[in-house]
């Protein structure tokens, strides 16, 4: 270390300067868009506003330490919401990945003609902003307005898409509609990197399309699958837009604290409790971080063991 700091040769110093220059934009953006808000959120979460008497004399800011974190961990609304998004993830992620994978393999199989057309078609729902998609689906779910429910009624199916039992499924449906195409295109692109020679070898060995797909293609795109899965898990934890839109619809059972993000929003903008909202947001970020790390670790271990098996 001391040798390095003493006096590096000019060439190396210049190179290090170049590296720093190239990295600077990233770290600058990282600091401004990530570290600073996180730090601000942390500071917000440590102070809370206290009132006295009836409250007419206004509030004063007091240091509260981790009071709001402890409060969140005992708040049934936060815990229920967290359970809900985890349940959502458990259903949504495998379903999403399975369907997207099948579609990607179909796109990639030699049988498919008009690939570009189907690719564009699959991506179409993703071009619709999430908010608009949710509004469209609320319309489709609302009895008396929706052609879908009246058609279902005609064939004898009376489904209440907003009831407490079915609303999670209704939201998963919106998410699938919006993200399957995106994920399948992502996986399809990964499939393009499978070497033609490997595929040819498999064919020569007598593997059919299905066998090739399962034994060659799927293992090959595992990293892409993991990335898709990870994004979907993090997206699930941050579930907000769809339930927020559904909340305003008639007879909806979605509450203002239905997901942790909704709870944070409501605490900040309904009751002006910014410190509690910040604490909830940071806890949520921590959960997402832990889940991501676990997923990465898991994949790393699987990859290493499969490499060992290969060699």
């Amino acid at each position, binding site marked *: 270390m001391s040798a390095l700091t003493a006096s590096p040769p000019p060439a190396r110093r210049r190179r290090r300067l170049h590296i720093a220059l190239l990295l600077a934009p990233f770290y600058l953006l990282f600091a401004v868009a990530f570290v600073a808000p996180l730090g601000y959120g942390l*500071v917000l979460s440590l*102070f809370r*506003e*206290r*009132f*006295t*008497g*009836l*409250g*007419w*004399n*206004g*509030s*004063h*800011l*007091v240091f509260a330490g981790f009071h709001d974190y402890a*409060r969140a961990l005992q708040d049934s609304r936060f815990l229920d919401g967290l359970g809900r998004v985890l349940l959502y993830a458990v259903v949504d992620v495998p379903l999403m990945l399975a369907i997207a994978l099948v579609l990607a393999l179909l796109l990639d199989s030699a049988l498919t003609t008009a690939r570009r057309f189907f690719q564009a078609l699959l991506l179409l729902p993703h071009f619709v902003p999430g908010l608009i998609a949710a509004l469209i689906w609320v*319309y489709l779910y*609302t*009895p*008396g*307005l929706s052609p879908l429910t009246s058609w279902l009624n005609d064939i004898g199916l009376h489904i209440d898409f907003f*009831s*407490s039992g079915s609303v999670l499924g209704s939201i998963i449906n919106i998410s699938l509609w919006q993200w399957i195409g995106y994920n399948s295109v992502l996986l399809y692109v990964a499939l393009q990197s499978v070497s033609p020679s490997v595929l040819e070898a498999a064919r020569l060995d007598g593997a059919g399309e299905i066998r090739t797909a399962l034994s060659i293609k799927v293992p090959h795109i595992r990293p892409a699958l993991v990335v898709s899965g990870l994004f979907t898990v993090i997206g699930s934890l941050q579930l907000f837009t769809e339930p927020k839109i559904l909340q*305003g*619809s*008639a*007879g*909806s*059972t*979605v*509450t*203002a*604290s239905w997901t942790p993000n909704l709870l944070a929003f*409501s605490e*900040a*903008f*309904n*009751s*002006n*409790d910014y410190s509690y909202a910040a604490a909830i947001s940071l806890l949520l970020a921590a959960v997402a971080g832990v889940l991501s790390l676990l997923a990465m670790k898991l994949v790393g271990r699987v990859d290493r063991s499969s490499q060992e098996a290969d060699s």
Partner: protein
Amino acid sequence: MHISDTQPAARRRIAAALSAVCCLLLAACGSGSGAASIGGNRPTTITYWTWLGGMQQVVDRFNATHSDVHVVLSKIPAGTSGGYSKMFTAVRAGNAPDAATVEYPELPAFATQGAIQDLTPYGGADLRSRYPAWVWGMVDQGGKVWGLPRDIAPMVLYYRTDLLAQYGLTVPTTWEQYAAAARTIHRRDPKAVIGAFSTGDSALLAGLAWQAGAQWFSTPGDSWKVSTQDAASSRVAAFWQPLVGGGLVANEPAYAQQWTADLQAGNLVTAIGGPWSAAYLQRLAPKAAGKWAVAPMPQWPGQAAGDGTNGGSTMVLLKGSKHPKQVMEFLDWVSNSPDSIKAVEPVSPGAYPAALADIPVAKQVFDSTQTYYTGTSLFDVAAQASTTVGTGWQWGPDMAQSLSDLNDALAGSMTGPGGLRAAMDSWERTTRADLRERGMNVSG
């Protein structure tokens, strides 16, 4: 954090006080010409945020008739749809407008959060006699005047004359008759209902409880008491539970998509609302012109006539305004001048002025311009209803949250055990805990 947060605020307050003093001094010298004498005849520009219909016309009229103050209006989303958060955020960021619209339930939250200024130093307390006592009681709290009442909304019952006749019914005058009519209508036409009661509209439930004589919030002995355990609240819960659960009324929020579709299809025979609802019915179901009429709310048998409210708004002076005196002039003019009423009424028919002296003016405009409603004038019904509104009702210090919490409690109440009554019980506990968490005194 503490210091850096309060210092600019303190500085602003000093600046505001100084400018107020300056204004007073100059006004004294310039024999009442006020702010106009500062820097030639340039008018003072103040900003005003609202979402209410017809306010642009009101502001235009104000600007045309005032040379000392110029008001710039910005349209914001409706209060509980994001307008209030926008205001709170703007106050926190120090770039709030000078004046804004706040509804009665949220006024205490704006006061306790320090987002609005007391109007007493600008003569606010002298205006008490202009308004009905129950109205003044909602703006004059904790010894301070937090806003000037602009419009009020004693609840009334709108009804379809043709549909009631078709079912062989008359306007229900008691809740018993209302329930009986509900059963008749639903039996005759399974698609039709007498009206709507939404488990997503806690403000409606609050208004109905108020009508029955409930008092959910009160402040005995310098602490908040939150209770829905009174007979009136239980009576309201027990009344609506079977109607909503049995599908005899539509469980859908008023003015939303589904409700509008039912309104247009003639599936809603009556609608509970404030005088302002008149403009909405007219706009959402133009084809039903000449078929709607207005009646007083159904009453509880064995009780003196009562009413609650459903809406209404105040005009407030936001924290950080540098021109409180000019803002007060604007607030005063909007909430109490025939000119302002004449500007708003044609655009937003049914807007019911809070100031007693303005009601005949509004009635005259409404009666002479609208052709949608038949029968007794909306203004006569509302005037009578206003005298029966219970004076004891008080809104809590955090109603945006409390009403949202009540909606959450109500959301599953029709399928959950205990129904509406249990939802109110759980809401009451949540609210007490919420207020306690903030450090306020809570009793019971």
